[in-house]
């Protein structure tokens, strides 16, 4: 947390009244309260993502898609605590942390900044979880579930943890001055690139391009978008690591940018197709949220409005173009998160203002053109590393096992084939098995009277 934390403390000192009490070694109840909430909010984003993604697929793959998010809560969460956190925030080198905090050794209730270091670990863990889950949008409806679990486990350690270290863990990108308030590059570009690579490695769904594959439950998509927005206040606001003015700035920007993106998207939709779509509005919210993520605590609210509005354009047109290609990035993770994150990261370099946040830097608009270059470089570095390592992981995994569902299974739907369940069932024609296999003891109990 090193560098980032210093910035935050610096700005903190300007706005918090009880600043005298804010030595590096003491907890702040207020900051702790806000970070407790933020951690809960970011954790909620993963179930929200499950609904956003789950509503967009066909009903026969609903559960499979939702579980790709839910399982990350387990797999990525546990691995983060065991090693990921240490690889990301351990001292280590400029490129990766170390194992000094593996198994959470030394991560306790002592302050890290003004909050317990354990809480910082938990907060960062929720980021690791959702980043992995984001990738799933590119591989739904065809990737086998067990290889998927292995993939996100490995990816979290080999890709997410080092990239986090680069930017926030004292690594080279942070040192270089790259601004990434809450994860434009670390989370969104990273997941977006991994997604498109995974889509290419897996290949398109067999119906892709031949049949109309349309969302089975758009209200779920809206539910997901709404709750993602809510959770994102913790994502961006919590990245201030304190309940201070910067948190307020980040939170309000996280309200304004998606609002502006939504309005712009609505106008684009109306001009291009004469219809304003619900899936479009949901997508716009996410794109606006993604784009403001790297900038949230570094730009003024007016800039956030502009940034949100601008971010609509590239993602809007790339989504329209993508579906006409053979790249089956099924739920447009690249267009929404990769491109949105890129736009946001570059525009951070344009709009950042040291006047609003002394812990940040000035951007192009305030005379520091170089920041755009630094931003571009940070995105590029993350994209190349993430793309390459994701490719290798999947290819190796593909040697060990079949990562793609059989064509028949794809036809039947992965809910039945991989999970043995249906999302919506009415029980007609379902016949109970197993009654005869009741073990002896149970048979005894079976003989109990149904009512006492």
């Amino acid at each position, binding site marked *: 947390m090193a560098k980032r934390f210093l910035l935050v403390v610096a700005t903190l000192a300007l706005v918090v009244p009880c600043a005298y009490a804010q030595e590096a070694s003491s907890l702040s109840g207020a900051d702790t309260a806000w970070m407790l909430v933020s951690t809960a909010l970011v954790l909620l984003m993963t179930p929200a993502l499950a609904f956003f993604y789950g509503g967009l697929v066909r009903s026969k793959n609903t559960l499979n898609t939702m579980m790709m998010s839910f399982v990350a809560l387990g797999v990525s969460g546990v691995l983060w605590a065991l090693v990921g956190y240490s690889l990301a925030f351990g001292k280590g080198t400029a490129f990766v942390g170390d194992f000094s905090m593996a198994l959470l050794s030394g991560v306790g209730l002592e302050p890290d900044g003004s909050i317990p270091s354990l809480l910082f670990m938990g907060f960062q863990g929720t980021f690791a979880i959702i980043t992995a889950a984001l990738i799933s949008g590119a591989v739904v409806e065809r990737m086998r579930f067990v290889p998927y679990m292995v993939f996100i486990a490995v990816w979290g350690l080999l890709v997410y943890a080092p990239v986090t270290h680069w930017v926030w863990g004292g690594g080279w990108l942070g040192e270089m001055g790259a601004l990434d308030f809450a994860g434009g590059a670390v989370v969104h570009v990273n997941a977006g690139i991994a997604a498109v690579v995974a889509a290419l490695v897996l290949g398109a769904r067999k119906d892709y391009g031949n049949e109309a594959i*349309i969302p089975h439950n758009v209200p779920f998509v809206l539910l997901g978008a709404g709750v993602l927005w809510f959770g994102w206040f913790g994502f961006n606001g919590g990245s201030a690591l304190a309940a201070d003015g910067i948190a307020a700035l980040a939170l309000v920007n996280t309200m304004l940018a998606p609002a502006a993106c939504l309005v712009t998207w609505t106008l684009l939709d109306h001009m291009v197709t004469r*219809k304003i779509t619900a899936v479009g509005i949901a997508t716009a919210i996410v794109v606006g949220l993604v784009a403001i993520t790297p900038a949230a605590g570094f730009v003024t609210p007016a800039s956030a409005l502009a940034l949100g509005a601008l971010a609509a354009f590239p993602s809007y047109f790339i989504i329209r173009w993508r579906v006409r290609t053979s790249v089956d990035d099924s739920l*447009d993770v690249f267009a929404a998160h990769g491109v949105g994150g890129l736009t946001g990261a570059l525009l951070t370099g344009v709009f950042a203002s040291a006047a609003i946040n002394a812990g940040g830097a000035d951007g192009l608009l305030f005379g520091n053109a170089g920041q755009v270059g630094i931003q571009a470089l940070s995105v590029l570095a993350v994209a190349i590393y993430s793309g390459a390592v994701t490719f290798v992981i999947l290819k190796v995994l593909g040697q060990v096992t079949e990562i793609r569902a059989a064509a028949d299974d794809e036809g039947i739907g992965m809910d039945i084939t991989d999970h043995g369940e249906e999302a919506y069932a009415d029980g007609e024609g379902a016949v109970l098995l197993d009654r005869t296999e009741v073990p002896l003891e149970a048979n005894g109990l079976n003989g109990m009277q149904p009512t006492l």
Partner: protein
Amino acid sequence: MKLIKAIIRPNKLTDVLRGLYAAEVFGITVSRVRGHGGEVDAVETYRGTTVKMELRDKIMLDIGVSDSFVERTVSVIQRCARTGSVGDGKIFILPVEKVVRVRTGETDTEAVTPVQ
């Protein structure tokens, strides 16, 4: 005995049912179906994917009637389901060899006479 199979617009169902009850046709089975015919297809767009919806929501009625009821049933449906625009639907009259009421085992005409 005949089975009258009528495909109508969903928003005409209430009218048709009222008409049938008035004509003393009480035994009716209804299903949600979708139909293709002469109607213009709706175009929908999902994230840039444009699709043409070639099927429209319709309602299918299955009505078993004794021969003497066929004509009035058909004419009630025709009257109540009509809007005059393409897509109003079709009525098929199929021969039936036998009808059985599950509850009583009554057959044919008795089977379709409603309980009082």
